[in-house]
């Protein structure tokens, strides 16, 4: 098709983590006013979206056992862009914060903008936001590092054990195929080995899961790092590792700051 209908648009909205509790008014308004809503959310959230719009299409169908997720994500983008190009007002509704640990929303906005369509993202409440509330952690207290577990294993990262370390998607830690729905104890053991460069085996870590429904409690299980190998985890489990070391003063900078204070106070 040589002529593109520029009346199409895409907004990627955030549903938040918990049904009914987290969606912002503007996200809800976009969903209600859309011609079509593509959803990548928990099935219960998708049912909720169906009460806001009569044309909600689940993107769960694009996943498949043994299927490379990069293909799945491209198919999500293609499905959304197809309706944008058809001139529709399209919404992509992604769970949590639509732009956090989600490839397709960023990509579809990039593609739509490149083709001249209106496209933007609406922020929301992510699993990380919920984690701080449920675990009573303030990332400002010691600092906080976030990594996808597999990326943390594949690449040499410099971590600071005097800050919190949060590892996401630990159920598929070390999955080089980008296809699996779980790796397993041997892979987790390798992750533990990597972590023991900075943390003792008896260091207490939290396994966290944010509830989708208000009738459920958040999962917060504190276990020794060594027990992670055989812990009960799922695709939504996150590992939270508190600091193992105290923060060390940077005396050189403190001395220089003292000199500045003498000059400017």
């Amino acid at each position, binding site marked *: 098709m040589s002529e593109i209908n520029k009346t199409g648009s895409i907004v990627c909205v955030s549903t938040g983590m*918990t*049904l*009914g*509790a*987290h969606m912002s008014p503007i996200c809800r308004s976009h969903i209600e006013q859309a011609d079509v809503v593509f959803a*990548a959310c*928990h*099935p*219960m959230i998708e*049912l*909720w979206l169906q*009460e806001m719009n009569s044309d909600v299409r689940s993107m*769960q169908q*694009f*996943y*498949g056992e*043994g*299927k*490379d*997720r*990069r*293909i799945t*994500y*491209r*198919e999500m983008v293609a499905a959304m862009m197809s309706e944008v190009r058809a001139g529709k007002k399209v919404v992509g509704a*992604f*769970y949590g914060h639509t732009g956090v*640990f*989600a*490839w*397709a929303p960023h990509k579809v906005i990039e593609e739509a903008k490149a083709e001249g369509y209106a496209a933007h993202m609406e922020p929301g409440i992510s699993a990380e936001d919920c984690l701080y509330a449920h675990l009573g952690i303030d990332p400002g207290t010691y600092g906080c590092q976030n990594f*996808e577990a*597999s*990326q943390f294993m*594949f690449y040499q990262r410099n971590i600071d054990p005097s800050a919190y370390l949060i590892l996401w*998607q630990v159920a*598929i830690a070390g*999955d*080089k195929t*980008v296809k699996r*729905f779980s790796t397993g104890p041997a892979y987790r053991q390798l992750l533990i080995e990597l972590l023991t460069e900075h943390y003792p085996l008896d260091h207490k870590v939290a396994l966290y899961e944010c509830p989708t*429904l*208000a*009738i459920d409690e958040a999962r917060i299980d504190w276990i020794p790092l060594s027990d992670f190998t055989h812990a009960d985890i799922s*695709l*939504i489990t996150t590992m939270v590792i508190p600091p193992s070391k105290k923060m060390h003063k940077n005396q050189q900078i403190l001395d220089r700051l003292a000199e500045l204070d003498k000059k400017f106070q």
Partner: protein
Amino acid sequence: MTAIQILEKLGANASFNPSHLNEEDKLGIQQTLSDTKPFNAIQSQTPPDEEEIPEQNQDDEKNDEKES
């Protein structure tokens, strides 16, 4: 109210107490939950390298998906 409407109210209304749900509502929620399909939560995953997946594989995968 549907099960989803009850859950929405539970999420949004601080004074709507889940312990006040009647048996019918609880059963409705349980039934709706049991009918849901598994949730594929992974929406971003780092590959071990920057290699692009061949287009041929994508077609194969699409065919596999349709057949399954």
